[in-house]
């Protein structure tokens, strides 16, 4: 027996693991370009949110059809990975269907279930391709989806279809070989779905079938390893990041904006209110608001990497629905793309954040930021609890406080508030005039 296949397998597995670890480190570093933020309160609620929203797909089911199809792809991914464990062990030890003798009847049942899932994944992915490319569901054809993002989505679906076909083809060839009593092939039992493929293979020679079975086996396992690496370059990272992303969800009321303590200290000093702040404030207080990714929190950047560009946010955004430039999905894609750009530059010994570019201006325009009504529709819509609004508001803070770049009408509103304590130009003395009329009215019985 030749050990060559095992050796080749081990080399491929090691190389894949090496690249994967390198990629994970790269992504982790990019996410941590964001500012430190501690969000560990209420762990019980956090675990529960993760279980419901990520594991339980709770928010996906707000739209039933895509949720139903996605559910099969999701369960298929989780469950078929159990079979991948057998693949990897078979590859290392040079065995074939290592688990079959131990599991007996349960193995046939498991294999049939895997095949059922593989078929459902396949069907779902075909429907998803049709939705994207034939039906052209509007949220998949928005401007930010042109080019690579559309290609990325289609590639992922095609890879999944091909991988699932490989499993079915492998099982079909495998079982015909077993029924012919060839070598180490084991009769597993009736496999319903791959059994449907038997007529295609029945007339083929044993040698050719062995070739097909082996080719499908290698294609599937190498394909999965390659896909794992591909995922780290794609929008598909949500399969892993959905879990930490939902754990670190914002648990406060959605309407609440975070307070800026640095501003509080200054306001208190101006109003002569004693403050808890140290007498000597740090020599350099950072920027107010966010101009670039390092002004955002690492959770904002993780949000961006968790985004799978489904566009549910954008399809519910009132600004986007009425033709404004703002698209919450684009905000997330821009944050991720900028983090990628800075990360790559740093790795190449480049200038990183100091490259003369920034998230504001080079990626996101003021027109987009100014179109937001802060209505939280995007936050509510996101199946993995991404918060585009937090980023938009943080960037508005930079525009207002560092650039004084807010629209003229907002500047007028600021001025009114400073002088008349109302956003409109009314005299503060008139604030209580509304009561005069009602105070004269008699209360009916």
């Amino acid at each position: 027996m030749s050990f060559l296949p095992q050796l080749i397998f081990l080399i491929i597995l090691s190389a894949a693991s090496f690249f994967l670890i390198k990629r994970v480190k790269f992504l982790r570093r990019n996410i941590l370009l964001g500012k430190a933020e501690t969000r560990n309160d209420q762990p019980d609620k956090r675990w529960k949110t993760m279980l419901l929203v990520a594991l339980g797909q709770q928010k996906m089911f707000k739209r039933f059809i895509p949720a139903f199809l996605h559910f099969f792809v999701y369960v298929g991914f989780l469950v078929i990975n159990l079979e991948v464990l057998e693949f990897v062990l078979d590859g290392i030890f040079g065995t074939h269907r290592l688990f079959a003798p131990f599991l007996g009847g349960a193995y046939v049942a498991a294999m049939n279930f895997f095949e059922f899932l593989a078929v459902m994944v396949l069907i779902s992915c075909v429907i998803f391709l049709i939705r994207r490319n034939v039906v052209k569901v509007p949220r998949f054809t928005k401007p930010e989806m042109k080019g690579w993002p559309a290609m990325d989505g289609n590639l992922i679906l095609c890879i999944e279809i091909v991988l699932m076909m490989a499993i079915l083809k492998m099982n079909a060839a495998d079982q015909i070989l077993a029924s012919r009593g060839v070598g180490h092939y084991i009769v597993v039992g009736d496999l319903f779905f791959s059994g449907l493929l038997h007529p295609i293979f029945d007339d083929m020679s044993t040698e050719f079938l062995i070739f097909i079975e082996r080719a499908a086996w290698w294609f599937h396992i190498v394909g999965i390893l390659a896909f794992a690496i591909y995922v780290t370059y794609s929008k598909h990272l949500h399969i892993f990041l959905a879990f930490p992303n939902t754990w670190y969800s914002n648990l406060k009321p959605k309407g609440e904006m975070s307070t800026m303590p640095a501003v509080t200290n200054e306001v208190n000093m101006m109003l002569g209110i004693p403050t808890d702040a140290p007498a000597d404030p740090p020599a350099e207080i950072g920027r107010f608001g966010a101009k670039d990714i390092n002004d955002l929190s690492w959770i904002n950047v993780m949000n961006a990497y968790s985004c799978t560009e489904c566009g549910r946010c954008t399809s519910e955004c009132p600004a986007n629905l009425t033709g404004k430039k703002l698209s919450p999905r684009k905000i997330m894609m821009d944050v991720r793309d900028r983090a990628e750009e800075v990360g790559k530059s740093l790795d190449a010994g480049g200038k990183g954040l100091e490259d003369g570019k920034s998230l504001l201006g080079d990626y996101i325009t003021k027109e987009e930021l100014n179109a937001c009504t802060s209505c939280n529709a995007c936050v509510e819509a996101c199946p993995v609890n991404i918060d585009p609004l937090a980023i938009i508001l943080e960037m508005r803070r930079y525009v207002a406080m560092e650039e004084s770049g807010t629209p003229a009408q907002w500047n007028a509103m600021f001025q009114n508030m400073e002088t008349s304590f109302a956003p409109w130009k009314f005299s503060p003395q008139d604030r209580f005039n509304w009561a005069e009329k009602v105070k004269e009215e008699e209360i009916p019985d």
Partner: protein
Amino acid sequence: MSTYKVPTMAEMAGKGESPEVLFWVGCAGSFDERYKAVTQAFVKILNKVGVSFAVLGPEEACTGDPARRAGNEFLFQMQAVANIQVMNGYNIKKVVTACPHCFNTIKNEYPALGGNYDVIHHSQFLQQLINDGKVALKGGGEFKGKKITFHDSCYLGRGNDVYEAPRDVIKALDVELVEMKRCKTKGLCCGAGGAQMFKEPEPGKKDINVERTEEALATGASTIAVGCPFCLTMMTDGVKNKEKEAEVKVYDLAEMIAKDMGI
């Protein structure tokens, strides 16, 4: 017969009294010509029911919400800290307001700056009054049996998860509550939030309030009920834009209850 009373905190403090609840009127409630009617309707209800309340009157200032959403955190905190000093000075414990933006800001954002109050929106307050039997609705008023749709305000609904209180108030009027296609968690914004109220919209194909008004009109409702001063303005403008102001009215919840009570 006596007239309606609108005591201020200063007057009450002068007499050594303190009310159960502060009615936070807000800027629209104080200055907006149309929306002042909502403020008046709400104080009439408070008078009629005999709730011990007071307002800040000239001592009230903008909560700072639009400044904060427009990015001006300095201005927001200046407003907020000044308001908190006034409210803490009067030892205020409970606040009711008809404006979801004021509600959200005082409830969620003032605590970080030292202002801790029990804050409720007037829809919740009215719901309590109805549930406690303090507001006896006649149910035979001008809304009886009519189709009414409720427009969720973002800062009440998604912002603070208040969806049922306003609906309970409407249902108490013995009307047919019809929902828009996008309602509750999926409710579409009127277009005014995030300081949009104070500037022209960015370039686009359509105004958000027109989009939302079309959806409200599609329900066939004769009244669009709202619980927010900005929504009231935006939906009223939307109805005018669609030239439906003769058939379809936009009312705040407090106005509807006051009408039913005959005040």
